[in-house]
């Protein structure tokens, strides 16, 4: 039902041009397929002037009704059933170059014109791009991918069947199976990011375990999560700093740990999706589900002075739309921000309907990145429990729930940047409310919900500032009045007059002791929370003290998503031409027409959106995920444009295979990521030798038809981890705050930012790469050199490059030199007096395979040369070997040199 039939038709078509009329009549009866035959022609030749961006002559071929509508000239360019009178066809034949289309470009081929002609003749039926149709149940059964395939009727099963079919069409065939050691190294690097452990090597090479058992053991290793997290964190744009100009640190690592655990627990991809997009909206969310929502708090946060928080809040919302659609739908939504999509059937207003799903969260690009989830220690947890139980028994369950939320993430609250109409006051560095003596401002439309207590977060360098809050203006009723004294950052409670309706607060301060234009305090936020009930009861004071102490307890935090309460709902508007200041019509949350339909049972919010994405009718989620996993393992997707599956994307190389895997990922594998990976690595396609002959290279340079195994350079993380692993330095420690391994001096020079790189101590210097501190404006340099990104925006695919700067890293970076020294030490320890044996041992540690005689000769001569150099120049030897080493000898130095070369071999840097 897919491409192959079309392809054959295409071939036949070409051959039949010269054939007799009788056959032409036969052809006429065949239906032209819009999606595979017509749309590519329109996209290639017409749509750049007649599409989402430009609609020259009032004509667009993007949507059906636009294409069939009257154009500026007053007639329709396409008249279904009547190609001869259709302007579109006429213009293709024009002689006058000013009239002929495409305007001033090469004309269409006869074959293309014929296709369009026939399509209009047959009624100009519009159709959907293949990727927007649901994934249908494949005709080929899901055969268990167990080793020792059972169904003997077919030569190849599952994945291999589809791959083999395409190979036959291209006169190719499978290569033989990779030898067991290379396969072991390949699959181990792919699943855990590390070489196989010694135990696993023994079990596999002695035949104690089957290949499937080997794969299971690798998938069970905790290293699996660490390896695959790096990939997901590129999509999630995870980093340890906020980005933009000041780029100061943020504490996000609990989210990174959540991702690692999710992979290791094999959290089904639908749950994995729902929790990250809307964990906070699940009924009674667990702490882990709240942590997951930090996915969309990885957006950047702008602290630059003079920037308006609302502008960057909006930027974050739009980034969430774009990232969600790139990550789950392989769809580029960014262009729809300014106009309808130039090629794909997404309309301008649909973009903002999508943004409406994300436009009602509490985060507002404030400096403190609230709302943040708080992680309390045992002592605080006990205090909280006692406060809650007090509130429950003396007040109401509702009050206890509101308090729970406030303890957990301090919402709802009003940020200082909402203040306006300053008199004798300012928004300090466009962040904090700073009123001078006799200063005032307004905080408008505040819904205190009748609370009798104000909570205020602030600091002050002065004693005795009188702060008065009035209702409506300078003459309004006093709602609260109190004195602020000198303090570092503190959250304090003050009595507040109950007001049942939203009001404008007039805030006034007086402190004659303040110098002119000196801010009396810096206020971060205001919140309105009912005071604890039972004031008359014994023990109240202690409970209230506990309440205030917990509010000021210094605890680890994590920015999370929290939906606006009804009193803070924002309206969403279309932005005219994408400009956030130009509001068009108001829109409500809605998913695009071109995709799967909405189930009315779903809540119309982020949670519903997550259900919609993981609904089995959604045509893109499973295909996208399968395509990405395939790309991770083979270095190329079944659709090569990993970030885009739209109408402009390259046609899938194996459409049936893509759908076979996508359908079964949802239905047979129940969204299990581990099972999907297992299915793929068990295939013969994956297990082939990766050797390449000139003929094969000529035929298939990019390995599109998989007549050989995947041979790809390792990622920056794998390269570092592998070097540390083979030299015995790699720490087994998992999780926790990011670490700072060795980095050259003078890398961090960010403006208005006093932070510096502080070398981690002990084994933290040798943790896996995924734990390395990632500063967006200045990422870890050797990772950047090996194509890792800065994680400022979502990245679907790292482009692998091959540069001299990479060679400089692995040759000279002290991290790799340290690894070389330790590897050299291991080699020497193994065979102190037999360099040949030692070299063979070192090589096998690195490559898992034994060394060839010619290679050992090359390294032996390098060893001899180094040895004689270090014997002659002991001062050089002393420089090479670290000061704290137990042993200093020319032999050890020479082994270090050989190890340095081993860590630089192409085969070491590449998955075999």
């Amino acid at each position, binding site marked *: 039902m897919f491409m192959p039939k079309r392809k054959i038709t295409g071939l036949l078509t070409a051959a039949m041009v010269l054939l007799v009329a009788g056959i032409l009549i036969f052809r006429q009866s065949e239906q032209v397929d819009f999606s595979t035959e017509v749309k590519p022609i329109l996209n290639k030749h017409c749509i750049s002037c007649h599409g989402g961006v430009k609609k020259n002559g009032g004509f667009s071929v993007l949507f059906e009704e636009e294409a069939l509508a009257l154009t500026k000239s007053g007639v329709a360019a396409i008249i279904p059933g009547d190609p001869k009178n259709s302007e579109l066809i006429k213009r293709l034949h024009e002689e006058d170059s000013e009239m002929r289309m495409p305007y001033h470009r090469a004309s269409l081929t006869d074959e293309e014109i014929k296709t369009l002609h026939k399509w209009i003749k047959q009624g100009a039926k519009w159709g959907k791009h293949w990727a927007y149709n649901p994934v249908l149940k494949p005709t080929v059964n899901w055969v268990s991918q167990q080793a020792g395939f059972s169904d003997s009727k077919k030569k190849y099963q599952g994945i291999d069947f589809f791959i083999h079919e395409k190979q036959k069409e291209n006169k190719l065939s499978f290569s033989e199976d990779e030898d067991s050691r290379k396969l072991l190294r390949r699959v181990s690097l792919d699943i855990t990011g590390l070489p196989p452990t010694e135990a696993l090597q023994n079990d596999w090479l002695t035949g104690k375990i089957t290949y499937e058992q080997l794969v299971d053991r690798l998938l069970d290793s905790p290293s699996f999560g660490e390896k695959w997290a790096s990939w997901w964190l590129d999509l999630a744009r995870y980093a340890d700093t906020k*980005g*933009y*100009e000041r*780029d100061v640190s943020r504490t996000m690592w609990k989210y990174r740990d959540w991702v690692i655990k999710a992979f290791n627990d094999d959290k089904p991809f639908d749950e994995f999706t729902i929790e990250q997009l809307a964990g906070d909206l699940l009924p009674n969310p667990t702490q882990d589900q709240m942590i997951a929502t930090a996915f969309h708090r990885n957006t*950047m946060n702008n602290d630059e002075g*003079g920037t308006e928080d609302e502008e960057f809040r909006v930027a974050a919302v739009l980034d969430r739309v774009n990232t969600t659609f790139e990550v789950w739908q392989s769809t*580029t939504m960014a262009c729809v921000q300014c106009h309808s999509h*130039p*090629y*794909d059937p997404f309309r301008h207003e649909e973009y903002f309907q999508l943004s409406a799903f994300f436009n009602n969260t509490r985060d507002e690009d404030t400096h403190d990145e609230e709302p943040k989830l708080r992680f309390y220690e045992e002592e605080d947890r006990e205090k909280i429990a006692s406060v809650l139980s007090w509130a429950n028994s003396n007040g109401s369950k509702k009050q206890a729930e509101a308090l729970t939320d406030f303890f957990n993430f301090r919402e709802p609250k009003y940020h200082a940047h909402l203040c306006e109409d*300053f008199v004798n006051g*300012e928004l*300090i560095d*466009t962040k904090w409310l700073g009123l001078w003596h006799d200063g005032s401002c307004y905080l408008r439309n505040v819904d205190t919900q009748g609370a009798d207590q104000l909570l205020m977060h602030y600091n002050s360098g002065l004693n005795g500032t009188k702060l008065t809050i009035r209702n409506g203006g300078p003459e309004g009723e006093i709602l609260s009045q109190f004195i602020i004294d000198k303090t570092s950052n503190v959250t304090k409670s003050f009595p507040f007059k109950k007001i049942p309706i939203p009001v404008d607060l007039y805030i006034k301060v007086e402190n004659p002791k303040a110098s002119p*234009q000196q801010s009396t305090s810096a206020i971060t936020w205001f919140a309105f929370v009912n005071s604890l009930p039972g004031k008359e009861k014994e023990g109240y004071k202690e409970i209230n003290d506990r309440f205030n102490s917990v509010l000021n307890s210094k605890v680890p935090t994590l920015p999370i998503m929290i939906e606006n309460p009804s009193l803070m709902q924002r309206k969403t508007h279309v932005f005219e031409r994408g400009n956030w200041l130009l509001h068009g019509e108001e829109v409500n949350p809605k998913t695009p027409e071109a995709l799967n339909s909405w189930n009315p049972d779903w809540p119309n919010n982020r949670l519903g959106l997550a259900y919609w994405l993981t609904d089995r009718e959604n045509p893109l989620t499973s295909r996208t995920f399968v395509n990405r996993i395939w790309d991770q393992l083979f270095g190329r997707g079944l659709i090569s*444009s990993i970030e885009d599956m739209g109408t402009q*994307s390259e046609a899938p190389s194996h459409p049936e295979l893509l759908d076979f895997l996508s359908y079964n990922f949802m239905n047979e594998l129940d969204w299990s990521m581990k099972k999907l990976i297992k299915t793929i690595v068990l295939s013969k396609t994956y297990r082939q030798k*990766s050797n390449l002959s*000139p003929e*094969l*290279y*000529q035929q298939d340079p990019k390995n599109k038809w998989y007549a050989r195994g995947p*041979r790809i350079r390792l990622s920056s993380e794998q390269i570092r981890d592998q070097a540390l692993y083979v030299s015995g330095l790699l720490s087994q420690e998992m999780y926790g705050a990011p670490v700072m391994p060795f980095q*050259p001096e003078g890398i961090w020079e*960010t*403006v208005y930012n006093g932070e510096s790189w502080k070398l981690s101590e002990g084994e933290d210097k040798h943790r896996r790469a995924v734990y390395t501190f990632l500063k967006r*404006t*200045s990422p870890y340099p050797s990772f*950047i*050199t090996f194509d890792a990104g*800065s994680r*400022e*925006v979502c990245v679907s695919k790292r*482009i692998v*490059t*091959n*540069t*001299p700067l990479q*060679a*400089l*890293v692995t*040759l*000279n970076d002290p991290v790799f030199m340290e690894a070389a020294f330790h590897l050299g030490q291991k080699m020497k320890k193994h065979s102190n007096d037999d360099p040949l044996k030692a070299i063979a041992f070192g090589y096998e540690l690195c490559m898992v395979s034994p060394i060839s005689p*010619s290679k050992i000769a090359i*390294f032996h001569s*390098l060893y001899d*040369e*180094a040895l004689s*150099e270090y014997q002659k120049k002991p001062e*050089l030897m002393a*420089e*090479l*070997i670290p000061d704290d080493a137990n042993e200093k000898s020319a032999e050890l130095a020479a082994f270090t*040199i050989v190890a340095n*070369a081993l860590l*630089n*071999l*192409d*085969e070491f840097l*590449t998955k075999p």
Partner: protein
Amino acid sequence: MKNINHLLAELEQQRLEKQTRRHFLMDCVSKVGGLALAPLLFSCGLGSSKEKVNGLSLSERDLNPLAPLPSPFLPKSKSIIYLHMAGAPSQLELFDYKPELVKYNNKPCPESLLEGRKFAFIRGVPNLMGPQANFSQHGESGAWVSDFLPHFSKVADEVAFLKAVHTDQFNHGPAQLFMQTGSPRLGRPSLGSWVTYGLGTENQNLPGFVVLTSGGKTPDAGKSVWGSGFLPSVYQGVQCRSKGDPVLYLEDPKGISRDLKKSIISSINQVNSEEFDHYGDPEILARINQYEMAYRMQIEVPEVMNINDEPDYIHSLYGTEPGKESFANNCLLARKLVEKGVRFVQLYDWGWDSHGTDKANAIDLGFRNKCKEIDRPMSALLLDLKQRGLLENTLVIWGGEFGRTPMQENREGKTMGFKGRDHHVDAFSMWMAGGGIKKGASHGLTDDFGFSGIEGRVSVHDIHATILHLMGFDHETFTHEFQGRPFRLTDVEGEIIKEILA
């Protein structure tokens, strides 16, 4: 015209092909540093067209993504030196002379200029501030240059001024990104990346796109201003530093002599070559090539980055002091780098954000000192390029990411201790000089306050279109496919500024 241009472009292409081929062969044969790489003979003899290597049909770019390519159209310039003053210098104290503004000094800014506008820090009604420098006309062109730039005023005839540049970003980070990548948001390739992607570089022993920073900080927008966005990372800028390794990890580890390093690389490449015999994967050939280049880079980068051996007259021309991180040193390095065939040299000098919040960023104090720091070296750069015959095929660009307000900043409504100006997007000045640029030209005019352009307004996209044109590209057709659509540096805009072309 078009036909002649095509012919010339073809000639240039042939010349380039011969040259690269020759260089490549020479590099292979001479084996710089005596690298004994016997198994590598097969990697010689590659031209830019596909040729057979060990039975594989490969182009030079398959082995070296920075191999030079001819421009699609006849280029006017071969390389670019871009001097970016990070923080945005005041045009009103340098090139945009506004005598009328003197009269309004300290008077409240007319409401009409403030209506519906947002500023980064100005609140309420600020006062106007007259120019804090003295202006006079210079050279045959009669260019207005202030006394903050006495040296530069002597070379004013070499450059073309743009007096009415505008942008739409008034915060540093986004504005720098916009100026350098054509988009205020992250993820797009920088100008230097586009140019090296399109043209490669002439000298394979040096990076093709070099970044030099001074002023003690990297630009506000971080390293993304020289990032490669969606282009392969090989096209990102390489930061060359004055302290520590000039290029990260360039220096050999302690205890490894040059001879031994040569043997290490030679061993690696011999084993890799054996690996190639086994796998037949051309990526291995590329890696062998990269290791040779790395070795040569280790020799050539420190050489070019070392200014100790420059003659005294050069040091006094630029005002350079070896061993320091300074704009002056970077200007001299920029000349050395383009002389050696580097395609794109990007300088960032930080410290131009003259708000007047303290002495260091006061218009009449810190700003004046910054001018002193750049005046001599940037003038020397033009003179030195000229005397070496390099200026005719090197494009030199000077500017910030936006301009400064004609009003004195009143940060958040406060009176300030020092004279400063806020960020301004409507009008600011830039200049270009060298290959393809009309000497002594001045394009664009601002109103009496220097607030808005009233004639010859040019956008950031226009500047990019012009730069690409000078490098031999049509900015509308120079694209890269990503996310299912062709992306270009100038997005959907950009007009070539013909008025400043020679």
